[in-house]
């Protein structure tokens, strides 16, 4: 752990009793009180996460919009100022470099938020694809800290610390000048839990004050500090993909079921030709939801079988805390993707009964 990078909130984690682990080279809490109570706090009240390990890249210049439009799969030409969009960066072969949030501050200034484990790779990828675009790229990951305030009480809690009317920050919009307890923050109504909530960005020196002020005013509304453990169970129940699980360089967004974030009709973007071809030829693999019918818990990497042969692999699985079922996502041979198709998941060398179910495990509680 000595070799891990520490976020500006490291001391807060230790004093809150966080169980710190190495996550992508960062010393971060996997849990405080426990994954289940933290998961439930986010579904029923609110939770606060340190997500300072996320990477941020600024894209500035006259051709910022054109550069981003070429870089990502979604159509950013539809964005207005201060709107946020989920998108993916793909390789020319169609596999995923990373998924990201694209913040449009204005036509000449975009802000890209990327996964911690991919920061160096992503930034290099952006530089490699800068070509002749008149833009300046700056990796500001080490200067920016971020917390995620998530759950049905998130707005009520944050509103106690700011004069900005949070009703004015709609789902997938942001405001760069929200004073949170006297500290200027970038605040977006975004998150990774399937609940209403905000992601709050501030400088490294200011984030501790933001964290402690939120904890202080949130306590009476049931706010709990939350670790990476429940971040994963929450995003999984909301069917939000995780890089390395549902999407990798060997899995395309179409195979991952993220086609709505891939605009094949836009002029051009890296990976378009391969994805158009894959769509025309029909998907050979699809990502499905499944429920385990026998007793057990499916996990990332377990084999999926049908008709006596291996037809795929579990990308994520859990005994889901809110859904209260043993469920998973699996990338499988498209021939077996119909709802109700019987499958088997191999757990400790035993094939256990499962069936394909809808990937909509949970009704998302977004405030739109």
């Amino acid at each position: 752990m000595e070799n891990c990078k520490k976020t500006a909130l490291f001391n807060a984690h230790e004093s809150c009793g966080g169980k710190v682990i190495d996550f992508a080279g960062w010393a971060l809490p996997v849990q405080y009180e426990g994954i289940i109570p933290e998961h439930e706090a986010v579904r029923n009240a609110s939770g606060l996460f340190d997500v300072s390990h996320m990477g941020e890249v600024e894209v500035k210049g006259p051709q910022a919009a054109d550069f981003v439009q070429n870089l990502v799969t979604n159509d950013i030409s539809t964005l207005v100022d201060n709107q946020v969009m989920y998108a993916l960066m793909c390789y020319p072969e169609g596999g995923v470099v990373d998924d990201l949030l694209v913040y449009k501050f204005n036509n000449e200034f975009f802000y890209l938020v990327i996964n911690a484990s991919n920061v160096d790779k992503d930034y290099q990828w952006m530089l490699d694809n800068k070509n002749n675009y008149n833009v300046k790229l700056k990796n500001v990951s080490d200067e920016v800290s971020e917390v995620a305030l998530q759950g049905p009480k998130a707005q009520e809690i944050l509103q106690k610390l700011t004069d900005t009317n949070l009703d004015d920050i709609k789902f997938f919009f942001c405001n760069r000048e929200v004073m949170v307890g006297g500290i200027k923050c970038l605040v977006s109504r975004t998150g990774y839990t399937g609940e209403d909530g905000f992601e709050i960005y501030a400088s490294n020196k200011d984030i501790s004050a933001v964290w402690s002020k939120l904890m202080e005013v949130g306590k009476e509304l049931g706010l709990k500090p939350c670790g990476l453990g429940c971040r994963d169970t929450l995003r999984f129940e909301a069917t939000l993909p995780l890089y390395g699980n549902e999407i990798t360089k060997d899995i395309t967004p179409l195979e991952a079921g993220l086609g709505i974030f891939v605009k094949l009709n836009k002029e051009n973007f890296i990976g378009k030709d391969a994805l158009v071809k894959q769509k025309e030829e029909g998907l050979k693999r699809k990502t499905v939801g499944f429920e385990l019918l026998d007793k057990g818990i499916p996990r990332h990497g377990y084999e999926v079988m049908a008709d006596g042969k291996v037809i795929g692999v579990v990308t994520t699985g859990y005994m889901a805390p809110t859904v209260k079922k043993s469920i998973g996502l699996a990338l499988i041979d498209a021939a077996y993707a119909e709802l109700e198709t019987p499958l088997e998941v191999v757990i400790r060398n035993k094939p256990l009964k499962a069936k394909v179910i809808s990937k909509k495990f949970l009704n998302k509680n977004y405030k739109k």
Partner: protein
Amino acid sequence: MNVLKDLLYTKDHEWIKVEGEKAYVGITDYAQHALGDIVFVELAEVDTALSAGDAFGAVESVKAASDVYIAVSGTVIETNEAVVDDPSLLNQDAYANWMICVTISDKSELDGLMNAEQYEAHCK
């Protein structure tokens, strides 16, 4: 961390309580704490013949699955279905809630195990 005096321990954090020719096996307080909320327990079936070092089941937290190993050879004569039905019992009291009971086939295998004092040192 709680360590009981009259038990034997493995380096993988299982405990063994010897009663005549029988041995009760479970996981230690250290293990349940490290795992966090335990949500699933799977145990070898009665009559299974186990060799020292075999997995006799698995304990799963929300986050991960961990095999549990038996340090002595023997045949399973009883399983504790209470921990299968309610895995959180292991979090509540890891020593009161044994997992399997075996007949010991070779008592000399017990010699390699740690006593409470040694185990406490092992966990540091």
